[in-house]
């Protein structure tokens, strides 16, 4: 083509051309690896909700009668994936008797304007009092012990006196979000706009065991969906842990 190039040795020229293409190729390989890896959607998580029987801390199935009513300690189990804390609460009235939640549940409304119903509590007929909710506050993601259940008659520090708290409340001390567990953990008081995601429980009347099998309501705080963003439990059951 133009002048000043004829003097350039052809062997060197071809070598330089190869080096040039190779160096761009090396950079491109890195770029492709990064770009394609990013676009592959992660396969972590599950495609459907697992059915997991709740076990106690000793590694045996947890029985209904062993779950304390209005427990002062926080009882948690992991559901649906490993590391997702969920409250397990045996609701009671002010006298400490199991609260029978068999009245048809009211719809719970969430921020996007839709409503859903959380089913009744589970347990023996006449005392269907056990409920389960995600233990991550929907407002800013605070976890137990910042957020926990206050049995009826106990004051919620800085918010409600014992006489106002008649039905039992889940309250988050980070910013004051309060939920009503007897009503599907509907929002009692902001700043949260979403209720706590509910976990469906099954009660086996012959074995007295409890099984978590499904979820409803908003997505667990901090996750793209309930079933992704974590790894499944390595056990076919889910064990409780107790704080306090």
């Amino acid at each position, binding site marked *: 083509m133009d002048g000043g190039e004829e003097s350039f*040795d052809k062997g060197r020229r071809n070598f*330089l051309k190869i080096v040039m293409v190779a*160096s761009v190729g090396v950079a491109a390989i*890195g770029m492709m690896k990064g770009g394609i890896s990013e676009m592959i959607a992660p396969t*972590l998580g599950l495609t459907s909700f697992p059915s997991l029987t709740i076990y106690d801390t000793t590694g045996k199935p947890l029985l209904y009668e062993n779950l304390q009513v209005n427990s002062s300690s926080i009882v948690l189990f992991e559901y649906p994936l490993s590391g997702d804390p969920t409250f397990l609460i045996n609701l009671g009235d002010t006298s400490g008797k199991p609260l029978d939640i068999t009245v048809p549940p009211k719809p719970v409304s969430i921020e996007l304007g839709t409503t859903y119903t959380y089913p009744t509590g589970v347990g023996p007929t006449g005392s269907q009092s056990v409920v389960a909710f995600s233990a991550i506050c929907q407002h800013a993601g605070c976890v137990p012990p910042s957020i926990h259940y206050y049995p009826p008659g106990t004051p919620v520090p800085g918010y409600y006196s014992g006489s106002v708290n008649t039905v039992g409340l889940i309250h988050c001390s980070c910013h004051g979000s309060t939920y009503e567990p007897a009503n599907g953990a509907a929002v009692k008081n902001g700043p949260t706009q979403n209720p706590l995601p509910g976990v469906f429980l099954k009660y086996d009347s012959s074995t007295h065991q409890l099984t978590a099998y499904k979820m409803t309501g908003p997505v667990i705080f901090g996750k793209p969906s309930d079933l992704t*963003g974590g790894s499944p439990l390595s056990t076919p059951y889910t064990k409780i842990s107790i704080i306090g």
Partner: protein
Amino acid sequence: MENQDKKGMTEKLLGINPVSLLNEMPVKKNPTYMRKGFLYWTGAMIMVAFVYQIVTGLMLLLYYNPAHPYTSTEYLINNIPYGALINATHLYGAFAMVVLVYVHLFRNYFVGAYKRPRQLQWLTGVILLALTIGVCFFGYSMPGDILGYDASQVGMGMAFNTPIIGTSIATILFGNAANTASLYSRLLGWHIILALLIGMLFGLHFFMAESNNIMPSGKESKHRAPAIVKEDSTMKAWYPYNMAFMIQLSLFVVGFIILIPSIVALIPNVPSLFSPFPGPWRHSPLAENAILYPDYPPWFLLFVYKAVDFFPGFISIIPGFPPIYGGLIATAVFGGIPLVYFLLVPFIDRSDDLHPLKRPIITALGIYFIIYLVILSVWGAMTPGVAVPLQYAVAVLLVPLVIVVLGMLLISKLYRDGKLDITYDRVMTSYFIFLVLLIVGVFALALNFASFMTYSSVGNMINSLAAGIATSFAAIGVARTSSMNNIEKIVPRKPTVYHISEQSATILSAILLVISVAIMFLVINLNPISGQMVFGVGIGVDFIIAGVIIRLYRQVAYNE
């Protein structure tokens, strides 16, 4: 001969000659001197950054969820291979675009590229500046972290407080404020719509640039408009000369866009304005830490943000009408006036003079706008949200204007009288740089010293000392360079030509390739989550190495 045969083969196979096709593309040939540096290619660099933004933006779109903006972003960063790297380089690619758009604007302003025949090209360019800042604003708000949330709230406040049509504007831009999804799907939508508008307008801008060709050097145009290079047979073909240069340029731009945020990400405690990661969730206790996360807009809007402090609250302008929101006045005055000025400048300055010193007022205003951007941005970063009396602000902004305009008129007079030789270019450039430094330095010194006097701390004492030293340095520089202007003889600079022999180029390229392969080998199998920023450093360096190898090839093969 072998080459000829190969071409013959492709031609036989495809029925076309690819090289002649490349040379028939509607792109102009360029004089060789333009390929010496990057100064003639600031627009091309913006284009490369823009393409990088589109590619990474679409990759981020795959994971963005407007109903859960923060959690979906955090999920991308913490769980997706190379997600944090792509997110961080998308942010810094935007920063690069903003900086390059300003560099491009001021370069073309000072050389008079807005004059005929490029007036329309200039107009589309100024609109592209506004669109770029807009697209960056929406993008910055999208993660829903405390910084982005603050930015979107300020924007929403301004939109709502626009008289009469405020509610309509706010709902068009930000949705009906019903919930998170409503706001963030609008932010996402406008981010993409504005990017699309930039792409379309850029197409127009690009083809105008191709038909007008790149503005030639002052020497070639003899500083008279219209400055046009005529294509002639002595110019080298676009392929392979300009194409090799464009590939080299693209590799450098992309290399630095990847390299810089990767290095910044490895440094602990980067100030929130420049952090390559989103800040904390807006409701988390950490977000309320005003020292770590002051109420800042993105840095490229800091200058308007400081101006808001000059107009606190609502101000009644026309008696009998409701008062107007101060932030809106500030934006209209401090953002709008420069924009309108740049839009009108081709119609204000219609002379054929292209030399900056023959257009003293225009050049002075350009320098002043740079000082103005720097002063207001630094001021905004140091004392965000502290109200300033309007008369004080006017004084602070007026003093540099007077200095710059008077100084330029003086220098221009010297130039016209022939006392400033054109070969003193370099001294002049240093003189201007020192002058700008001096003004900024005096300002920083005054501000720091004032705060030192009212409240002494080690921090502001060190700041005052540093500003003092910088100011003295700049003052000495101004004095030295201005006295140099009077020296009759300055030894003319010999053009430095870096000549490298074929042999050294070959060996050097081979060594660089080996280093490049070694780096890739080291970083490619790092953990794609925890090691991704180190991976970014490696990729960035490899891009730059590839650029250097092409530079070497152009030197020995094309003698460029």
